[in-house]
């Protein structure tokens, strides 16, 4: 099934911000916004839930500590107990560095992997920027079409008030 969206282009980040605000005030649905760099305050404007990536990172990091400590205890006390200068087999203090490094390693890789999966980014993926220049110096706003011939009416007026430099309607495949 396909649906119609409106793609508006902007030259300045403030224009995009204003447009996002105006569109939300009128209750139209924002599909996504596009920018060449991170706009820190857009999270509140776009709405949506807080990211759960920190939880993923914590769980992976905790798994790293657990696995590393468990493996070191098992290897040095059960599998091959080795007497090194009379030191205890299960000396926790000596296990800290490896456990710490494993925490950072698993936490970091788990986090980035979760991010890639969540954002559906993968090597070799074909990029589909909505407008030319959104990775250079352009900003774009995608609005779910609020009704037939919307561009002729309200939407066009609101976006033009926000200094949109381009406006077009597109048919896109709805995401599965």
């Amino acid at each position: 099934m396909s649906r119609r969206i409106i793609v508006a282009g902007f030259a300045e980040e403030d224009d995009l911000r204003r447009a996002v605000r105006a569109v939300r005030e009128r209750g139209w649905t924002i599909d996504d916004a596009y920018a060449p760099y991170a706009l820190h305050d857009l999270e509140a404007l776009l709405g949506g839930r807080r990211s759960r990536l920190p939880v993923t990172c914590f769980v992976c990091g905790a798994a790293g500590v657990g696995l590393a400590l468990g493996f070191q205890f098992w290897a040095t006390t059960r599998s091959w107990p080795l007497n090194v200068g009379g030191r205890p087999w299960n000396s926790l203090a000596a296990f800290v560095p490896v456990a710490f490094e494993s925490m950072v390693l698993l936490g970091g890789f788990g986090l980035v992997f979760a991010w890639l999966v969540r954002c559906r980014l993968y090597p070799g993926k074909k990029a589909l920027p909505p407008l030319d220049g959104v990775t250079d110096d352009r900003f774009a706003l995608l609005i779910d079409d609020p009704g037939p011939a919307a561009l002729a009416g309200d939407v066009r007026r609101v976006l033009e008030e926000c200094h949109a430099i381009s406006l077009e309607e597109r048919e896109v495949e709805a995401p599965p």
Partner: protein
Amino acid sequence: MADVRLPWHGPLIAGHKTVGQVTADICAPLERRAGGWWWLAFSLAFSLLCLGVAAVSYQIAVGIGTWGLNRTVGWAFDITNFVFWVGIGHAGTLISAILFLFRQKWRTSVNRSAEAMTLIAVTCAGLFPVIHMGRPWLFYWIIPYPNTRGPLWVNFLSPLVWDFFAIGTYFMISLLFWYVGLVPDLATLRDRLRPGLYRRLVAFFGLGWNGSCRTWLRYEVVYLLLAGLATPLVVSVHSVVSADFAATLVPGWHATIFPPYFVTGAILSGMAMVLTLMLLARKAMRMEDYITPRHIEAMTKLVLATSCLVGLSYAIEFFSALYVGNRYESFTFLNRALGPLGWGYWIMVACNVLVPQLFWFGRVRRRLLAVFVICILVNVGMWFERFIIIVSSLERDFLPSSWSGYAPTWIELATLAGSFGLFFTCFLVFCRFLPVIAMAEVKAVVHEGHSEAQA
């Protein structure tokens, strides 16, 4: 999170750039053919690398008897170079992670190349323990994997094993951090390049990034968390390296001051190397508007701060050695300053502590040539620091009949030269094929301070 008011007045990026100009300026060196300077520098660096490859091949074929080691001095040049290169890497993580957490916006102009420097320096460092093993093809024995020798595990109580985990994690997390930061810029580059192999590779690693703000918001979360993970990591890495020494019973090594002492020294040497590279790169790649004298000045202040900390560590180390009343400990330190390697000790003190004090003067901080010379001296001094700590603690041991000196052979010197060759070859290749300045981050701060300057 609220932005901290920075002690920085005026624009961060000079020349009233627009966002589009930032893309054009930073991509420009990648879109034109390499200049004469690049080929000259590359051929010099590559020749050194070839020399290093020849030296390493020879010592692997013949054995590490080709080194100047003896029964008394069993660790010298190789481990010095290892610690030196690991230390160089630390500034990259300081700039990319710690300054990010401190919301220092000036870092955006230098973080990309400093992180690349970290990766390359850690690669150079990692080669030395592998060469030192004598049988480098068995290096994987340090990895605890199920094997038919027992299974026999590595000794988890040994700092050398911790070192393997620390350096390995440091390399992989630095690579990840660098790559995540690079993805938006690869997308920018992808959308500018002409079709061809280069573009296909850039597009492959660009992960299909299209600038979606929802992706950007999650990207910000990932970046912040990675910075939070990398900050304790960078402190842990050189602490673990220092444990290679501090966990032994050798007078001159067995000291609790070692971890902070090594970490501050690492940051000092790394900042000096970043400055050395930045001063050359900004000139060669015409990035003067992005890496302004203000950026250089901020970094010289970090050099000054860490230099003072290193000076304090030298003083504490010496004081406690004399004060503790252990004859062997105090002898080692007197020998270090006044013995056969005393000249090296005073080079170390002069280059690492005394010379950087010139950075108290604003005129010196703003004279780029002076900064360059001082940073080269700090690099020399930091290499000597590791050499002196290692060799002077070993050469006069508990038994006077076994006292011995140490001098490197040409094979060891060629290996050191080769590591510099590897470092500069990789850095030059990086400058040629990837954006040396984080475009997406600079774009976000390009207007910073301009309105203030006009007011």
